[in-house]
């Protein structure tokens, strides 16, 4: 046996001396059992929200997006705010599954499957907003470049809005492939345990006839690694391109070069917060405390405090540049429209500051990082803050532009605008509830692999060897 020295302080990734079979049992049992009352309540609420969203969209399509309280000045309001917010949330899943895989962070295995699922559902929600924002949604296919009878009149490849089309659709496709290819072996595990005919049939279809052959595993590993390598720059590019939607314009407060890194950090920040919210619930509801441990929660809180601080620095840099550039318009936007609490939208700026920059600093304390209640509360707060951030960027830059005659202050959303947003929550949670019920929320095969090198039983075995004196080793090898 080879010796692997590891700090005694590093906690095991899986608690409670599990065997491989126990891992299978623990993770797959919730799929085989009848859903709990709590699940039904949550699911019905989600479906109700979804239906309300569908009705809101029905009205938007029938009567036009005049249903929303947008006006000529504030042409991007809740809708694009929600789009950017959801895309940002999606980023954590790819970060956990791809970037942490490349960095060989073992703890990702506990949360990666659910986080990837979250990514897919969040991107689905995000995609709704620009699509329905088009108004005449039946012409949405005009954004695709294809030879057409209008010239052919092509799309503008120099426009960041078109880059977005490519970025978001690629991101969705690649995330879906990454997630599903990882899921195939686990679905095969569910299939082989299935008792009823229907389950055998359905999981048989969805597991693609996976056998677990060594050659297949070898290719699967290669595939995961390359997809991770591809997803890493992809995830950075997606939010970079989203930030280009703003940064390439000439609106004060938007055309700043800091946007790409600032948006990416913000995306990771809000995404991790969403993963925290979901994981705290999932581990409780499905009894996954041995797999999603306090170590996982703490590691994610560390990412939150790091990215929150990066975002904070970005805010301060913007304020500094608003003054240092000596541009009247920049100065007005940053120091009057935003940082002045008593300006019409000052509340949103300070709400953002409080939620995103000030409150996450609580996570410098280890005790707070490992407190479930604080974690959950903070995760919700961060997402509220990140929603404010996008609202601040979009609305406070638009409502007072270069032409005072077109200034508009009293922008408040209509019920259908809010309904659309609630509907996206409905879509997200409906998908997530179905996923949590019918698919393994934790990557079973990957946990089995981690169990061997970082499970509690392995750590216990290693501890005996590690505490031995060096002299004792020499003595043993002498024979």
């Amino acid at each position, binding site marked *: 046996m080879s010796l692997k020295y590891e700090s005694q302080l590093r906690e095991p990734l899986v608690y409670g001396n599990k*065997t*491989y*079979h126990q891992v*299978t049992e623990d993770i797959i049992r919730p799929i085989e059992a009848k859903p709990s009352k709590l699940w039904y309540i949550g699911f019905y609420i989600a479906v109700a929200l979804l239906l309300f969203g569908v009705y809101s969209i029905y009205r938007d399509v029938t009567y036009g997006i005049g249903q929303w309280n947008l006006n000529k000045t504030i042409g991007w309001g809740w809708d694009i705010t929600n789009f950017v917010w959801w895309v940002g949330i999606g980023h954590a899943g790819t970060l956990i599954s791809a970037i942490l895989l490349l960095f060989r962070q073992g703890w990702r295995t506990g949360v990666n499957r659910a986080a990837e699922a979250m990514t897919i559902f969040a991107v689905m929600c995000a995609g709704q907003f620009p699509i329905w924002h088009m108004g005449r949604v039946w012409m949405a296919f005009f954004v695709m*470049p294809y030879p057409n009878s209008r*010239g*052919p009149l*092509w799309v*503008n*490849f*120099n426009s960041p809005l078109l*880059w977005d089309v*490519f*970025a978001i659709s*690629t991101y969705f*496709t*690649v995330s879906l*492939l*990454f997630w599903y*290819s990882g899921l195939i*072996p686990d679905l095969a*595990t569910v*299939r*082989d*345990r299935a008792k009823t005919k*229907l389950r*055998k*049939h359905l*999981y*048989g*279809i969805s597991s*693609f*006839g*996976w*056998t*677990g*052959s*060594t*050659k*297949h*595993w*070898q*290719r*699967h*590993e*290669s*595939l995961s690694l*390359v*997809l991770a390598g*591809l*997803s890493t*720059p*992809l995830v950075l*590019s997606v939010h970079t*391109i989203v930030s280009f939607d703003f940064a390439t314009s000439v609106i004060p407060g938007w055309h700043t070069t800091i946007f790409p890194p600032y948006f990416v950090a913000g995306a990771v920040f809000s995404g991790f917060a969403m993963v925290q919210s979901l994981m705290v619930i999932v581990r409780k509801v499905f009894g996954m405390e041995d797999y999603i441990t306090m170590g996982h929660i703490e590691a994610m809180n560390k990412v939150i405090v790091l990215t929150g601080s990066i975002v904070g620095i970005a805010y301060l840099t913007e304020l500094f540049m608003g003054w240092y550039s000596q541009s009247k318009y920049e100065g007005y936007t940053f120091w009057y429209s935003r940082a002045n609490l008593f300006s019409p939208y000052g509340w949103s700026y300070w709400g953002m500051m409080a939620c995103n920059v000030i409150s996450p600093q609580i996570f410098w304390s280890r005790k707070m990082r490992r407190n479930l209640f604080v974690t959950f509360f903070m995760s919700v707060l961060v997402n509220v803050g990140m929603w404010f951030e996008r609202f601040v960027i979009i609305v406070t830059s638009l409502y007072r532009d270069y032409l005072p005659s077109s200034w508009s202050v009293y922008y408040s959303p209509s019920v259908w605008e809010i309904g659309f947003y609630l509907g996206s929550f409905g879509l997200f949670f409906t998908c997530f509830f179905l996923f949590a019920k019918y698919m393994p929320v934790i990557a079973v*095969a*990957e946990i*089995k*692999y981690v169990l*061997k090198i970082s499970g509690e039983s392995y750590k216990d075995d290693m501890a005996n060897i590690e505490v031995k004196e060096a002299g004792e080793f020499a003595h043993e090898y002498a024979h």
Partner: protein
Amino acid sequence: MSKKKFVVGCFDTEDTLFPAVKKVRTAGYKIQDVYTPFAVHGLDGALGMRETSLHTAGFIYGITGTTTAISCISWIFTKDWPLDIGGKPHFALPAWIPIMFELTVLFAAVGMVLTFCYICQIAPFVKKHHFHPRATDDLFVMVIECTDKTNTQEAEAFLQSAGAIETKTEIAEEGWWIGRYDRDEVPFGEKIAVA
């Protein structure tokens, strides 16, 4: 597509599996495959498999994507419909980098996954013979392909001595067929009378 005879040995840990693989190969048996519940690192090497070239395929798909993007966009913007955007150059390469990058990733990912499914012969509705249902749970299932010379009892005894906790001899279809997992249909219409 043909039926073959196999000797199956099940192991419960990798610690016994690895030496067993070595012994079985040294003894001159032909290991058809080892079915494992998760990716056992180093097992492919122990079985004498070569490295997969899937990543090379990924690279080729990737550059196909890049080429597709640059050639399509430059043809559209310089030849087919040169749009005058504020008098800026028609061949605006820096502005095309985002789309070139996205298509590179898209082509590489989609191409690799399809290739993966093709070379592993996995797809919805595809069914294969599974030597042990616990191969996706907690057993490492080594399958030895029998030749004319193989004595199955001897092989089973050999596997047991190498640490297998369960052994059996099976005649099974090696390839895949279209089938359902809730039914025990026989591939390719060869019906076997059930008593």
